[in-house]
């Protein structure tokens, strides 16, 4: 079965499911930025490649701002390959800890959910 993370408004709403999605998206951003520094558009491209093509990228900006405010990432303006200066984001130590915590949580969560799904389809 194929589950798709969709819905243009999901991430912006305040119901619990969207809070969950926001948390997941934040975890994904932490994993991405840990690999190498990214700026806005390059993050959205990586997300699209990873199967998050349907997420409106407008939702990434407030998330990046609040992650920076929480001290998980920090931004630095530097020249990019093409065009004007970009704000590249780097992971802080707190961000690395948060990323590890997210991966652990996700492993537990997805194992549990998968178990339930497979049990149901047997």
């Amino acid at each position, binding site marked *: 079965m194929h589950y798709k993370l969709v819905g*243009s408004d999901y991430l912006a709403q305040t119901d619990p499911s969207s809070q969950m999605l926001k948390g997941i998206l934040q975890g994904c951003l932490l994993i991405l930025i840990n690999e190498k520094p990214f700026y806005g558009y390059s993050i959205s491209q990586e997300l699209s490649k990873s199967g998050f093509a349907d997420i409106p990228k407008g*939702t990434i*900006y407030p998330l990046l*701002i609040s992650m920076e405010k929480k001290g998980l990432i920090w931004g630095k303006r530097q020249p990019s390959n093409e*065009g004007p200066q970009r704000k590249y984001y780097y992971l802080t130590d707190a961000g690395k800890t948060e990323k590890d915590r997210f991966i652990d949580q996700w492993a537990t969560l997805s194992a549990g959910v998968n178990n339930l799904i497979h049990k149901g389809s047997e």
Partner: protein
Amino acid sequence: MNSATLITRNNQLREELTSENKKYYEDLMVYIRSKSTFKRESDIEQILFDILTDIIDAQSNGQSARNYFGHDPKTSADAILKSLPRSFAESLKFGLAIIACYVLVFAIPALISPVAGLDLGNLAIMAILGLAFALLVLRLINQSIYQERRAFKILGYGIGMVAFIIISIGGIFIKTPVVLHLNGWIGISVIAALFIFATYLYIKVFHHDLPATIIYAVIGIYALLGIGTRLPVVDEWLTKPLLPKSLFLWIMIPLCIIAALIGGFGTYYLLTKNDTKK
């Protein structure tokens, strides 16, 4: 980069957008700017600049702004605004700037006649009302951007205009006992000082852009008149009444409407911060 550089770069880069993407981005930009009175300008301009460069990237990869940023820009814009902290210093700066402009624009004309005196109470009340009006205009512009229904848009313009007329007429008819008489050289010195302050604001804050130039020129004429009436020779032919009072009101109302229209479009224009010196 500071805010001014970011705004200039933003103005230049925006020209690279296709007309459809430009409309999408400018709506987003004006929506965010008109709702960011109490936020730090540098925060706002940085995020706007980042979004613009990303939309340009998307455009060069064949993706439209709507497709990239999403079909619900208002929700994303509100989330961005919510994630940015409020700034007390910025709010104070905004308030003082509006009050200073109001006092300059109205105190200098009020000083034309040395006999009438300057009603400080009226000036204080009207400056505060002027500030409230400025906030109302920003709010109305903000509300109108993602407003689909025409009726609400028109209602918004209507509210803005009625508020402007009430404030303008109130400015003329509200009288308080706190009146300051500035005759002779004291009056001339006060007018000169206010005009120097206006010149400073005009050059340093408004960077002699077009709407400011018009207002500055009008203030300049009033300042000259005010100084003139305090000089004995010029006094005589300047103080003869030009129009009877009842006629004056009928001239004021259409003038107010025209001024309200100019003010509304002027504010929108300032929010897009187009570079007039290009």
